[in-house]
């Protein structure tokens, strides 16, 4: 039973990282129906930017007290901003001209973008795994034989806060309304005076900024990064977004946590090598019985 609880904790924290990436996937899909394969790499780029910012701040180990808050806020804000800019640039350079092209064209471009980012990162920091400094103190809270680490709480907390903030933004602000309108019918939105280019750029800005935040947390959580990490993480996060109902923010979150849990429990009770098989089998089953995903609706209620 203790092991089961411990694995639930492992699964939920892993799911938190998937959820953060999945939010960006689902936003972009929701608004322009593009599977942005470069998104996983923007997430890895977030870890790289965080590393660079920590390097500029001269942080190499655990910091405490008020400095910790400053360091974390500066790093996370910097990584979000830089990733957001990268996201907007990707949209402007690679996707905007293909917006009305056949579906396959932007999809292939997205894959190409992913390769470009991976190779740029490899060029920047080398091909090897890179250690990430232990910035955040990591006390473990022990309850019985179950242990929760501070960084696990950080991951889950950040994912939930981001999801709620995003939900609030999309449903309670003018810009959010513009995003929903663009998602529903781009041409009609344009006729109503919405600047769809700005709105789509904004979507990329927010989605990529979230990936930047996820990048920072994953660096802290795993203590290392690698230019190729975004490939596998992006694939899982995309699966999470589809599982939850692509285009649906709460769904992306739910999907992320579910996939994390399935992976952890499969590892414990079946074996590690089957975890991907089980994850994708669950995806197939869900799509057979609920083609729109767990929280997806057949009516467009996207972004």
């Amino acid at each position: 039973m203790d092991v089961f609880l411990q694995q639930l904790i492992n699964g939920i924290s892993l799911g938190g990282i998937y959820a953060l990436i999945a939010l960006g996937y689902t936003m972009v899909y929701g608004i322009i129906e593009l599977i942005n394969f470069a998104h996983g790499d923007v997430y890895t780029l977030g870890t790289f930017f965080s590393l660079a910012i920590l390097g500029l701040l001269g942080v190499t180990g655990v910091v405490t007290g008020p400095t910790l808050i400053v360091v974390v806020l500066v790093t996370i804000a910097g990584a979000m901003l830089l990733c957001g800019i990268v996201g907007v640039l990707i949209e402007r350079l690679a996707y905007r001209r293909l917006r009305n092209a056949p579906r396959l064209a932007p999809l292939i471009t997205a894959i190409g973008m992913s390769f470009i980012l991976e190779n740029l990162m490899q060029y920047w920091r080398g091909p090897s795994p890179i250690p990430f400094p232990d910035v955040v103190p990591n006390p473990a809270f022990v309850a019985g034989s179950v242990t929760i680490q501070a960084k696990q709480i950080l991951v889950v907390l950040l994912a939930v806060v981001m999801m709620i903030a995003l939900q609030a933004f999309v449903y309670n602000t003018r810009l959010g309304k513009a995003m929903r309108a663009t998602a529903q019918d781009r041409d009609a939105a344009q006729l109503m005076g919405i600047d769809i280019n700005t709105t789509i750029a904004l979507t990329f800005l927010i989605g990529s900024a979230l990936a930047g935040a996820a990048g920072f947390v994953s660096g802290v959580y795993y203590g290392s990064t690698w230019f190729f990490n975004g490939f596998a993480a992006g694939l899982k996060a995309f699966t999470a977004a589809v599982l939850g109902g692509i285009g649906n923010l709460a769904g992306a979150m739910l999907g992320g946590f579910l996939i994390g849990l399935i992976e952890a429990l499969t590892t414990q009770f079946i074996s590690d090598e089957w975890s991907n098989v089980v994850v994708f089998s669950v995806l197939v089953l869900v799509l057979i019985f609920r083609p729109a995903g767990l929280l997806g609706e057949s009516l467009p209620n996207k972004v």
Partner: protein
Amino acid sequence: MRWSPILRAAVVAGLTAALAACSGSSSGSGSSGGSSSGGIPTIEIGIDLPLNGADAAVGVPTKNGAILAVEQANAAGFAGGKFKLTTIILDDSVQGKHDPAAGAQNVKTLIADPAVLAMVGPYNSNVAKAEIPLTNDAALAQISPSNTNDKLTIGDAAKALRSSHPDTIAYFRVCTRDSRQGTALAQFAQRLGWKKIYVIDDNETYGKGLADVFDPAFRALGGTILGHDHITANQQDFKALLTKAKTLQPDAVFYGGDVSTGGALVRLQMADVGMAAVPYMGGDGIGTTEFLKVAGPMADHTYYSLAAPDAAKLPSATAFVAAYRKRFNADIGAYSANAYTAAMIEITAIGKAIKDDGGTTPTRAAVLSNVAATTGFASPIGTVGFDANGDTTAPILTLKQVVHGKPITVAQLTLKT
């Protein structure tokens, strides 16, 4: 879709570059065999190693070892100055990881070039698996500095790799096999007093091969294997797996695999599940500086074997270590001396073939039979020779332990063959 002028220019430029590359390589290889640089015919030695990606950390120093051998041979007036040796260096990593298909393509390139008389490489066993049938078919002598998987040289699997010319052995290696490495590691684990071990491998030819030897060998010595799990490609999170291992309270965790497949991450995450004090053991795949860098303070309590002697500690390697340092301004890698030895053997075989043939460019077959006949060859890594399968007759293994972030040599064993 309308093409922008920039896009159009880029495509044209790309095509031009591709054409230039094609014509460049054809003019480079087409006239070889009797090709000459300054009147002296050139003989090429192919090198196929992973030179970018996570494996580059070990691939590049290995490549440098082979280059040094060729440069020294030229400087010493190879074949009385009648021939000049050069290297053709090919990279078998794709997207930062060693790739069997890329390796096979590289070997095809080498075979198509008549001036190539022998090759050094590859680094990884799964790449070798794709390459052996090709070098076997072309009778091109191939010596790997580092492949340790058993199935490359012995058993039915090896026979299947050599099916086009079953009687020809074209693939050799100067390092020892996993069955010897795995067995040595099991004995070492027992000597350290471990009774219960949890085994994890990366499901690749090398990693799983090593773990599959270690597992029964450790049981045979009376130890208990608590579990044996295979991780998946590009896996980043091992906390669930390690949580499962922790509940079984192992004396140590054994990892079969490379740093690029998770060797350092598994160790790093052992701290997260409260296994920081549990020792960690692996093969030569985790015996890299990269492992030490990524695992950081967690690298302590790690034990690993190298399928090579610790060249820095061998009297026979003193001259090599100094020459390497002088040429590349860096310390040798774990397999630099092996690659140097592999290239030396090939150069000697080519030199002998030239002499036997009265000073003409030798055939690949002549070079191959000289390589196969290598015995009692004095090299930095000791006296080397090949058995009937192409395996080294003098397998030396080094066992290392990481203490305060630095690997120290715990034992050096010459195994009985």
